């Protein structure tokens, strides 16, 4: 279980997170919704080690991880994507996914500099694993060797998820993965997320596309102004008056 307990974070006078408590289980999708500025991305930044929290703890399968830098969080089994697409644009698509294998690479720096047979072996294995993931994420083979930045936006989003999955995470945190996708792409994404969760990964889904979240999540947390205002199954959350109030007048994109 990924457990966030009593996490608070201030940006100057702004209390971006106030005593946030959230749990995400393996093998299911946990939704996290809330109006703009609610603190969802900030929470994700705290969990993944990009910013420090003022208070609170984050545990990954019982192990305390708060304060670890991002690359160590990845080693602890937590990987994330970004609200604004972060692509290694000038690499080939397959190489982008190969980057996700970083924490599974065993060869030393020196071995890489000498390009030993072990390194060549590792390279090949990493490329094969990356190709497997691209197949799983339905990225057509014709895209694999193309410059990643030239792929259609929807496919870059998938490549980003493939790259994250290549780390073999225990928990996958997605910050608005459906933003900019059309309805068809969005429902295909829902299907994919379910499959990922079925594979034993705990998926945390931040989304403004409420239908998508309600369709795939086992549990949904609702944040507003830095706090969790509601949580429960999708149907419980849908009928919660606080949630309705928080979203009143909000336009969702």
């Amino acid at each position, binding site marked *: 279980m990924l457990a966030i307990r009593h996490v608070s974070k201030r940006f100057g006078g702004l209390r971006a997170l106030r005593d946030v408590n959230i749990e995400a289980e393996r093998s299911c999708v946990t939704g996290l919704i809330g109006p703009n500025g609610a603190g969802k991305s900030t929470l994700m930044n705290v969990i993944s080690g*990009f910013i420090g929290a003022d208070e609170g703890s984050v545990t990954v399968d019982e192990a305390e991880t708060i304060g670890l830098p991002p690359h160590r969080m990845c080693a602890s089994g937590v*990987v994330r994507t970004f609200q604004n697409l972060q692509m290694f644009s000038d*690499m080939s698509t397959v190489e982008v996914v190969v980057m996700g294998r*970083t924490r599974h690479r065993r060869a030393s720096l020196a071995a890489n500099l000498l390009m030993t047979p072990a390194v060549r072996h590792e390279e090949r294995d990493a490329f094969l694993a990356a*190709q497997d993931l691209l197949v799983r994420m339905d990225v057509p083979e014709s895209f694999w*060797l193309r410059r990643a930045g030239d792929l259609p936006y929807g496919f870059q989003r998938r490549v980003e998820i493939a790259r994250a999955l290549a780390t073999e995470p225990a928990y996958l945190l997605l910050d608005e993965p459906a933003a900019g996708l059309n309805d068809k792409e969005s429902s295909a994404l829902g299907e994919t997320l379910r499959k990922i969760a079925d594979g034993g990964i705990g998926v945390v889904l931040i989304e403004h596309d409420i239908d998508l979240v309600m369709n795939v999540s086992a549990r949904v947390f609702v944040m507003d102004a830095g706090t969790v205002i509601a949580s429960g199954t999708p149907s419980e959350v849908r009928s919660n008056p606080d949630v309705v109030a928080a979203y009143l007048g909000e336009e969702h994109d």
Partner: protein
Amino acid sequence: MKLTVSPAASESTAKRPGVPLSADRKLSLVLMVLFPICTFAVTNSFYKSVLVLSMINAIAAVGLCLMLGFAGEISIGQAAFYGLGAYVTAYLANQFHIEPALAIAAGAAVAMTIGWGISRPLSRLHEHYLAMATLAFGIIMYIFFANARAFTGGLDPGASVERFMFLGFDLSSMERYFWVVWVALGLSVLVAGNIASTQVGRSLLAVKMSASAAASVGVDVVRMKAFVFAIGALLTGLSGGLYAYFARSFNAGTFGIGYSIELLMMVVLGSLTRVSGAIVGAFIITILPVVFEQFEDYKTLVFGITMVLIMKFMPSGLVEGVLSLGERLLRGKRN
């Protein structure tokens, strides 16, 4: 069949950006063969020495190419590492009479250590802040070289070294020293090529393209920056050590900002993402002043115009530009 694309095949068509990666290695190999051909072709000993100097500069340029082109870490203070390599080499050789090759290795190691050391405080800086900080480092080191006369000889009388000997053989003549530098450049290019075609180079590129994404998939960004500073300083220090035995006597004037800028020009001119580009850039920047010698009055003008034209029409460097031009011509012929 989905899984038939071998890594080798992927590598060869991977855009980073533009043309195949392994083309870089092939081009480097061609250049390494061209250098000896050139040295046999020219009879004038002055031209021979210019050729050797261009190879020495190429080693430093390859180092900066890894830093700036791959990791996106600009350094306008590379002359400091060049100077460190030269002075440590000269100092060790003169004081302890150690084998010149060992002295050069030690100079490179010292430069590497200092490069690694300064990378930590610098790793949080971006772009112009990093440019300013490295520029400041370069200036401070220049002032040190010019004033620590007990160690460097300052501007006058400067430093000098004995002939380059290797295991008792005198390799100091330009014909022989050519091969010493050639081997050093070959090794540098080999290692840099290995970096470029494995996970290390990919991680450097990833840090440049998106440091956050790189960190999120497990790349230790600070460590990669430290590594690239260390390797960049190592190669530049090596080049400085070789320069010491090339010039035999030199002073602090060589290690000013001018040289740092020249190195930047070499890398930007040749190619930012290709090791071979650094060699081409180093060659051109080294020989241009010689070529324009006859037109002394117009030298700066022609030099400047050449640079501007290249920047304008081949913004990703000469090598990139020529390759894509060649591609277009070939396609034109076929059609």
